[in-house]
């Protein structure tokens, strides 16, 4: 039975006594999925398990219906870009990718063509014939990405792919991910830059201490957290007056006024009612310049669910 | 009641002068050196031979103690150039061993994790850095070479009197100067090896190999080409020749002292060049 999902079923992995992941179950649909969590939480372990580089101590994994214990089949449609540098220093970027493709059984001509195309995708055609040892950090990152996508995989697993890239290349790479996700592929990446994760991901997986803390679409996840009231930042002319009106609403739990009295932070238990209250206040003649939800992003999710030392 | 706000405060006071700052690195390195147990043990072990030599000197000057043992002994127990040469040879070996043990720790730990930019973003130039390290090594090696040597010499002078001194003062100069040259060369080799190779153990092995292997190479050259000048390639042999010359002792090596001095100078220059190239805050790849 083939599915279009990547499935982890009750997976555990320990390295001797050291914890990798502890009873993880996930179903990852196509699109861009971001893995977010502190260092050492198990992100790289999950990726290594997914690509079959390590075997789980218990449970089973299924990548589009194929198990990683069958790498001959699975690695044909899976590409992996690791966090650490593994390209041999004596090879050129072009040779590195071509050799990898030859292992897939492509002919020399086919391998060179695909390698060149992959290098075009990551804008590395200029430096392709220089040795990897002379590459800067960003260039090595791009070559790793190129080797992961060269064989046109259906599932892309990328460990911190934007690390060390300058803003231009970041934007281009993100566009590349979006294009691939739009074609129905799986793009699974991990990142520490939460604002970017916010913008590009279709779904997010938060992991800490080897266990999954939350998964799903960002807004959906936020709506499920009931411990914390929603936060909105309001910009307006007469904050005190508007705050007084808002306090009359029983869904508002807390209001913090800005020092300059030109805005406030409102905590409310019910978003819908809040939106209605705001409309009423605005139509009654009070000038409201701006309304911004303050905690419907991955940053807030991270702080609520994982926390740690702000 | 009083509540104090005391956290990190930015230092805005006076800064120390050039020499105080220059001595900081040697001070730290010196402390860490003596925290290593093997170094301390080797240092103590290196004092055993000088102790024997001191006993020897004592016996040589108090002939009444062994008067009954016959004439052959008298020739043996004489404090002359040969005696000091034997002393120097033994201590030279200890010097190499100590440098191999302690030297790499000085630079290798800085290079292993790229700490050089942190040093050079402070008011410190590259010669300062090398000199500071060199000072430490030279200081430690001096403890086992010319300092005991000078002590023995003065002990002898004290016991043998003015007359002996006016005849043999060149021996004293030879011991001290000869050792100083040796200590300088060994220190440079140790620093260059540990700048070249990151792992302490391998750098230590490299230092040992430098001296002993080159000695073997020199012998090989001699045997294969049936010449005598091969020994010039070995710094140990070159040094030995120079010492013999200074101490007025016959040498079986048949080398020209000037050539030996030349080799050592060339060696020194090469080592300094290696250090200059390896100890950069930033690597430039063209």
């Amino acid at each position: 039975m083939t599915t279009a999902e990547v499935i982890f079923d009750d997976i555990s992995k320990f390295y001797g006594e050291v914890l990798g992941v502890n009873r993880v179950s996930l179903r990852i649909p196509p699109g861009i999925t971001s893995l977010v969590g502190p260092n050492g939480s198990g992100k790289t372990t999950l990726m290594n398990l997914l690509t079959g580089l390590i075997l789980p101590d218990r449970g089973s994994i299924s990548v589009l219906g194929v198990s990683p214990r069958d790498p001959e089949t699975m690695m044909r449609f899976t590409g992996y870009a690791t966090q650490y540098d593994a390209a041999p220093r004596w090879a050129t970027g072009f040779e590195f990718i071509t050799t990898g493709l030859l292992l897939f059984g492509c002919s020399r001509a086919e391998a060179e063509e695909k390698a060149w195309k992959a290098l075009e995708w990551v804008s590395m055609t200029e430096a392709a014939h220089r040795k990897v040892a002379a590459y800067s950090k960003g260039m090595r990152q791009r070559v790793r990405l190129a080797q992961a996508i060269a064989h046109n995989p259906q599932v892309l697993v990328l460990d911190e792919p934007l690390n060390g890239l300058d803003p231009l290349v970041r934007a281009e790479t993100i566009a590349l991910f979006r294009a691939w996700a739009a074609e129905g592929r799986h793009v699974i990446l991990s990142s520490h830059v939460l604002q970017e994760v916010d913008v590009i991901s279709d779904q997010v997986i938060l992991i800490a201490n080897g266990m999954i803390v939350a998964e799903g679409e960002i807004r959906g996840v936020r709506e499920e957290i009931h411990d914390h009231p929603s936060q909105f930042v309001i910009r307006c002319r007469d904050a005190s007056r508007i705050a007084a009106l808002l306090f009359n609403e029983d869904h508002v739990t807390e209001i913090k006024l800005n020092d300059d009295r030109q805005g406030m932070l409102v905590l409310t238990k019910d978003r819908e009612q809040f939106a209605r209250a705001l409309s009423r206040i605005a139509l009654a003649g009070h000038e409201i310049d701006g309304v911004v939800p303050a905690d419907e992003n991955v940053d807030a999710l991270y702080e609520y669910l994982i926390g740690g030392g702000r | 009641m009083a509540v104090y706000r005391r956290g990190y405060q930015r230092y805005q006071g006076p800064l120390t002068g050039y020499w105080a700052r220059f001595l900081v690195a040697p001070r730290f390195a010196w402390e860490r050196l003596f925290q290593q147990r093997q170094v301390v043990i080797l240092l103590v072990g290196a004092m055993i031979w000088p102790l024997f030599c001191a006993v020897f000197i004592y016996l040589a000057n108090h002939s009444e103690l062994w008067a009954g043992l016959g004439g052959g002994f008298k020739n043996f127990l004489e404090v002359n150039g040969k005696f000091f040469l034997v002393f120097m040879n033994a201590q030279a070996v200890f010097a190499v061993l100590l440098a191999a043990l302690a030297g790499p720790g000085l630079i290798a730990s800085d290079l292993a994790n790229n700490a050089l930019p942190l040093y050079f973003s402070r008011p410190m130039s590259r010669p300062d850095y090398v000199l500071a390290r060199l000072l430490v090594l030279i200081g430690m090696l001096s403890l086992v070479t010319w300092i005991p040597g000078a002590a023995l010499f003065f002990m002898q002078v004290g016991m043998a009197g003015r007359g002996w001194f006016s005849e043999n003062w060149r021996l004293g100069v030879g011991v001290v100067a000869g050792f100083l040259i040796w200590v300088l060369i060994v220190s440079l080799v140790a620093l260059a090896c540990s700048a070249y190779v990151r792992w302490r153990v391998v750098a230590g092995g490299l230092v040992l190999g430098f001296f002993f292997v080159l000695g073997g190479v020199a012998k090989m050259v001699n045997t294969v080409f049936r010449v005598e000048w091969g020994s010039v390639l070995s710094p140990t042999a070159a040094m030995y020749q120079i010492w013999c010359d200074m101490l007025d002792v016959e040498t079986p090596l048949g080398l020209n002292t000037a050539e030996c001095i030349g080799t050592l100078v060339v060696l020194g220059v090469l080592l300094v060049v290696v250090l200059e190239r390896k100890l950069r805050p930033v690597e430039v790849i063209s």
Partner: protein
Amino acid sequence: MTSPVIELDGLRVKLGRREILLGISCRLGASGAGKAIGLLGPNGAGKSTLIQTLLGFHKPLAGRARVLGYDCHRQVREVRARVGYMPETESFIANMTAVSFLRLMGELSGLPRETALEKAHEVLFHVGLGEARYRPLGTYSLGMKQMAKLAQAIVHGPELVILDEPTNGLDPAARQRMLKLVREMKDDHGMNVVVCSHLLLDVEQVCDEVVIMNNGLVVHQADLEAERRSNRCFVELEVIGEDQELSGALAEIGADGVREGGGRWRIVLPPSIEIQSLWALLGRQGLHVRKLTHRRDTLEEIFLKAVGHIQHTPGEAAAEKSLTV
């Protein structure tokens, strides 16, 4: 007029066979003001080379570089005594404890012996390494090593601190801590900070001025507050409710609205229309507001325009558009 912190005058630097900096002239910062300057640019623009030249690691081919009034090549020691540097690459001495390491670095920078010990402890607590300060640096995690690198950069109380990719590899909590420390450095302790980073979001949070480099030249230099003037005519809107008719309704009051899907809209208002009218319109349509904000140019957009990737920032485009609507 206060003197600038960094002053470059036709600076050209050559490394190996390639000329990296092609003649830069600019004045950055103000001495004693406690400001943060962002140094941005694509890879290969010459940012690292510039920093290394300021620290005296490279000799300029032509031109001059001055830091706090001292020449970077001829008065290297004076410059280095007043500067703290946090390199991008890993830099530490594995077998020293954090306290010894900072003591060494402090004394090398010129702190007297007792002061160096005091400051070592103070700064380690300040950066959050208090509990681990007697452990060797080799046992530290990546985040802790970054903090130790920051600590050695500020232990001697420099006037200028140069941070090269300070949040590299840090997880979100550690990144926030690092940025908070940088803000404290400039606000509370009056240090000038140069932050060199690819993460424009971090730079936006912390810096007052930015300098953007490309291909060895400075292509843009700006005061961030002035640049990010919010454009009152360019509005981002997100509504709850049925919004099919909104486009037509907007056209009626003379505004131009683009639908982005999911209830999100981008609207350009004509100069005559106030926000109140928008609220009234939405009320009439039976829509509730989830998000309403005047769009400001992000640093990323300013950056992309400066390096020539886009013609106009969205703010500029909207400003032009509103004049024609």
